[in-house]
């Protein structure tokens, strides 16, 4: 068996739309399956991010402490780290809460105290929200950006295919936000 390129995908604070767009490659998935080995992803069962990953695609912004840790851990073990989609690239909708000064407290209060009928309380045995939602590059070094909400499947396929062939990736005229 030829050595397959080791690919991981991570879903931080986002809607899974970027992962769905990844799956929207449809029949092209059957082709890339011959060339890549998926080693970590919400669509498979690895529980710990492995070592020596060639490419990691990350969807979503960094909204809590666990995600910050996950991102840093993945960065250490990844050669090429890609911000996939607008939440990862800019914070996007996930970062709308940043408009409030103490944004973590504000959003938690609304959801778990003001709109609860029984046992209103802010959950404590859960990851701690960061005071502001951050795009990936404010936490770690990012090698490529694929904007879009979500990025079109064709664009994701283009980036993966270029990387698999060792060719340069040019996003000029191919991508846009939203």
């Amino acid at each position: 068996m030829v050595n397959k390129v080791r690919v991981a995908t991570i879903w931080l604070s986002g809607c899974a739309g970027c992962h769905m767009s990844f799956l929207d490659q449809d029949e092209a998935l059957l082709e890339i399956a011959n060339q890549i080995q998926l080693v970590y992803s919400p669509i498979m069962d690895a529980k710990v991010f492995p070592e020596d990953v060639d490419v990691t695609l990350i969807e979503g912004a960094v909204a809590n402490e666990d995600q910050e840790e996950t991102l840093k851990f993945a960065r250490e073990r990844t050669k090429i780290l890609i911000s996939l989609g607008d939440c990862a690239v800019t914070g996007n909708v996930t970062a709308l809460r940043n408009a409030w000064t103490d944004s973590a407290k504000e959003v938690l209060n609304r959801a778990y105290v003001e709109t609860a009928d029984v046992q209103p309380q802010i959950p404590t045995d859960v990851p701690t929200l960061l005071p502001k939602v951050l795009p990936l590059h404010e936490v770690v070094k990012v090698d490529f950006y694929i904007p879009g909400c979500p990025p079109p499947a064709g664009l994701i396929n283009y980036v993966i295919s270029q990387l698999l062939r060792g060719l340069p990736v040019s996003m000029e005229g191919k991508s846009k936000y939203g």
Partner: protein
Amino acid sequence: MKEIVINPITRIEGHAKVTIFLDEESRVTDARFQIIDFRGFEKFCEGRPYYEMPKITSRSCGICPVSHLLASAKACDEIVSVKPPRSAMLLRRLMHMGQMIQSHALNFFHLSAPDFLLGMDYDPAQRNVFGLIEKQPELARQGIRLRKFGQEIIENVAGRKIHSSDWIVPGGAAWPLTQEHRDYLLSNLPEALTTTLQTLAMFKSWLSGCTEQVETYGDFPSMYMGLITADGGLEMYDGNIRIVDNNGNIVADQLSPNKYAEFIGEAVEPWSFMKFPFYKPIGYPDGMYRVGALARLNISSKCGTPLADEELKQFKKLGKNGIVQSTFHYHYARLIEALFCVEKTKELLEDPEIMAERVCNKAYVNNSEGVGVAEAPRGTLIHHYKVDKQGIVTKVNMIIATEHNNLAYNKAVTQVAKKYVKAEKLQEGMLNRVESVVRSFDPCLSCATHMVGQMPLEIQLVDNQGNLLDRKTR
């Protein structure tokens, strides 16, 4: 007290973990299904104009964005106090069918089929859709193409596959369907129908070998809730709410979704970001009900399309008084619904009015409040907005399909953990079964957080005060 933590739960649409509690003799006493991400839509939508709400709330979920678009647009229809033209209703329903098909195909082929076709104890590194592509390429291709058919319905109606939020507007839709798009979808319909029928037949052929799963994967009584047509048929876009008990008795019927707050309450537990809705007249936590495909078929007396109606008859024979209670049968129910949706897609595409030019009744703010309800693939989805005179949003409440099932999730994971997890000799496959019952429900945790080899395992030894005494990873 000892704990086993499965984190993250994989091949589900979201961020979750399961903590299993053991007593001194290492027997499983309890298990918790915990949601560990949160975004805060109910707060950060404040101050936005109402017509932006479909665009923003669609981003709750990339798996069922269409449900959010519909619930949000319906809430906005109420704010502008306008009924969309029939053409727009047909198109919205068509888009909804596309979403049901793609989402049900995703759960079956991409997420759950690896368990069925490769096996619960199969190598975890291969037990996924890429493993399926390698072992059963033709079946994987069919599944991929069925999901694609669903996504293409959305794309052809509304411009793109995910977050097609420019198309849906308060009062209807932004543009009509073209002949070209209609013909394209009709040309792909026969293949989708064949795949759905074959998959259903394949699943039914496995059922006799699944007795153990049926009996232990969340097999317990509960109430069931969902939208229903005026004459008790399966409804996904409009209609009123029906609640049925486990004996098939109607507990409440034709409830106006606008009055949801009168019969649904929400509780909070300190260990999860997912709230716990309950049926108010019974209270928390006994007012447990389930939603989604299983619940919809349990509350409905018919589907309304010929092939799905035949399947529904067979399905109902699995239970007493037409109520099928095992969570495992969500899989079966989703496949019957997928068949219904393919049949319904044909019916909608052949309706002459679907090509009408006029697809929107325009109006501005006429109401200070709007509630929009739709059946998402995973169950009843509620959006509730309040706006000021200029239409600026002042308050938002969203109850998400997956949340309704929260009490049931916890019951189901406890049942499976008690049956399969033997702490003294933990094996990966035991824990995969716990995850598998979670997959049966098909949780959409992306939505639920709106308001936001060998499996390495972490076992924590915790004393009664919750202090961590020991931690082991294998």
